[in-house]
């Protein structure tokens, strides 16, 4: 950045441009000043705010505005400026000429900060993605990542983590996600070495996404279990992490843990992230079905989700009734949806649960039923239904799904009478799990509260100072009195 010291900055962007969209450019300038103060005062909080403000401006960005902005922040003619502005589409050549022409009347100003350079990259990248110019965006993103590797400033971390995100997004949109895996891993390593926790969080999620995109659950789990964990910095990243974790655990048959993380992800996600929440809920529904639970009707009737959850609602219905035929037809009917959600293999796993539910219904309704009837009611289509039914029933009994005995000689299934459930420990354990859940929720809510840094400490120290001064005064008085006594 030393060469930039000598470089000049334009006094002001050309009038023609600024008059066409004064508000956007004005906002951008405000953001720049925010970043500048943040960078000088080393306050990461300000930069976070700058990024958030940028997202609000996203829709209003225009090529002319950005080029004017680049002229304002970076010195035109400098290496950085030419490099970044080369990524902008050239459809408004004329306007850009005007800009450079007016900026000939320069005034010597301070050198630009690396934060501003990275911010310019981010702005151009967002603009290119919004304009669907993915190939240009890819070039721009790669260049910015190369630049980032050489910068080590804590104030850049926030901007960098956004850049990583868009970098991965451009490659995903062009379908070349596998290519950047090595780069992402290298970046994650760099972030870990620099103690850039936000960067680590973002990159870990991007890597998980990358692996899961190709169904590489094994590698994803290995990375996840080995990567360092710490208190989450960003709620969005934490939600994503929980979602990926839930997916991995579902595939690896750890349904209880999977359900917990998926539900937590859905709950923590911001209201605006509808697509994300729908995805979370879809997976959570399947996991709950696999666990043998039936999700409540309200889950499917949430605002804006009814349509997306319709296939899953019908599926749940089939599982609830325990009808294999209906289950099969639903699975066929919505096979396209399930394939695009990549839940098809999980639904195949559900077949087993359908049989279980059906069997439980039978065992409740009949005190004694022949195995041939069981096979007919379950609609097992196999050459030897009675033998199948026999082994299925025996396994269900062994796993404790139904309370019954098998009469092999006569080919009967005899259900045991179910006693009064309130005389057992069942209600107690149910209450226990609910109370534990509520307490846990409360604890997490308390932990998630955010306090402005140091304000608590300062207040205390002020109080302490007063106390200390008081004590000192008393001591002094005491000594004085003692002195008096001596005389």
């Amino acid at each position, binding site marked *: 950045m030393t060469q930039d010291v000598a470089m000049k900055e334009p006094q002001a962007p050309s009038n023609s441009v600024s008059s066409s969209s004064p508000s956007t450019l004005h906002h951008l300038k405000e953001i720049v000043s925010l970043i500048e103060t943040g960078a000088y005062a080393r306050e990461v909080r300000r930069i976070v705010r700058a990024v958030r403000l940028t997202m609000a401006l996203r829709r209003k960005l225009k090529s002319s505005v950005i080029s004017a902005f680049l002229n304002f922040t970076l010195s035109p003619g400098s290496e950085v400026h030419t490099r970044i502005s080369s990524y902008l589409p050239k459809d408004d050549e004329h306007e850009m000429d005007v800009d450079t022409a007016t900026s000939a009347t320069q005034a010597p100003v301070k050198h630009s900060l690396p934060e501003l350079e990275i911010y310019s990259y981010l702005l151009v990248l967002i603009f290119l993605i919004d304009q669907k110019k993915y190939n240009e965006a890819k070039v721009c993103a790669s260049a910015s990542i190369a630049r980032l590797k050489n910068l080590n400033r804590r104030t850049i971390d926030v901007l960098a983590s956004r850049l990583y995100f868009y970098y991965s997004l451009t490659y995903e949109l062009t379908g070349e996600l596998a290519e950047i895996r090595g780069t992402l891993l290298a970046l994650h390593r760099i972030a870990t070495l620099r103690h850039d926790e936000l960067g680590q969080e973002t990159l870990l999620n991007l890597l998980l996404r990358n692996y899961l995109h190709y169904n590489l*659950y094994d590698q994803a789990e290995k990375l996840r279990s080995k990567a360092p964990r710490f208190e989450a910095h960003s709620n969005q990243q934490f939600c994503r992490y929980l979602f990926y974790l839930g997916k991995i655990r579902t*595939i690896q048959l750890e349904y209880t843990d999977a359900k917990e993380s998926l539900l937590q992800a859905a709950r923590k996600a911001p209201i605006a992230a509808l697509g994300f929440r729908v995805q979370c809920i879809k997976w959570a529904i399947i996991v709950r079905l696999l666990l043998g639970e039936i999700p409540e009707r309200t889950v499917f009737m949430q605002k804006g989700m009814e349509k997306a959850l319709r296939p899953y609602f019908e599926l749940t219905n089939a599982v609830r009734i325990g009808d294999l035929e209906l289950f099969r037809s639903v699975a066929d009917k919505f096979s396209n949806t399930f*394939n695009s959600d990549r839940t*098809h*293999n999980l639904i*195949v796993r559900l077949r087993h649960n359908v049989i279980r539910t059906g069997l439980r219904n039978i065992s409740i309704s009949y005190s004694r039923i022949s195995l041939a009837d069981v096979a007919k009611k379950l609609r097992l289509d*196999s050459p*030897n239904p009675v033998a*199948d039914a026999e*082994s299925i029933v025996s396994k269900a009994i062994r796993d404790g799904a139904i309370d019954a005995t098998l009469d092999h000689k006569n080919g009967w299934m005899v259900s045991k009478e179910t006693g009064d459930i309130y005389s057992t420990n069942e209600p107690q354990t149910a209450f226990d799990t609910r109370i534990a859940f509520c307490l846990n929720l409360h604890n997490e809510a308390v932990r998630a509260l955010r306090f402005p840094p140091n304000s608590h400490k300062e207040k205390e120290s002020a109080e302490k100072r007063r106390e200390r001064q008081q004590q000192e005064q008393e001591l002094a008085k005491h000594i004085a009195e003692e002195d008096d006594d001596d005389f």
Partner: protein
Amino acid sequence: MDPKLTEVSQLFERFKAAFVRKDFDTCTNLLSQLKVLLTGFRSLPPLFEDTPNAVHELTIARDIYEHAVVLSVKIEDQDAFERDFFQLKPYYTDARNRIPPSPQEYPILGLNLLRLLVQNRIAEFHTELELLSSTALENPCIKHAVELEQSFMEGAYNRVLSARQTVPHETYVYFMDLLAKTVRYGYS
């Protein structure tokens, strides 16, 4: 032609001859020599360098590991199977667009699924399953293993036992026998 490659091909021919003769001791010896020679090629995983003979080398290496997997089944060594399979896997996944697909791919993947089932490693079984495309799932070898897992979960053990008669590949018999043993044990 590269002398190293010629040496490997000759050795591999001898290996195949011994394999046909069912002389498994010689096979094991030759295999370890072959594996050492393979480390000399720079085009193989994990380096994947673009050497002039890359396609040929990759194909022969894949062929060798495929034979190694089948050999481990024949000598009933499950640990060797796991080792060889993991060495073979990059050729199916990472080298997919470098060399034409192998006709042995699906039988061997199915065999691996069966092994996971026999060793009761269901989580890994499902992880592997996610990697397979829908066309792969239609393949009889893979389908066999998938259906077995389902019957296993449902408890339709007689279907598991009868599936031994319908094995799609001769090497499957070994694992099916093991599975039948497990089933009988679980049944009683």
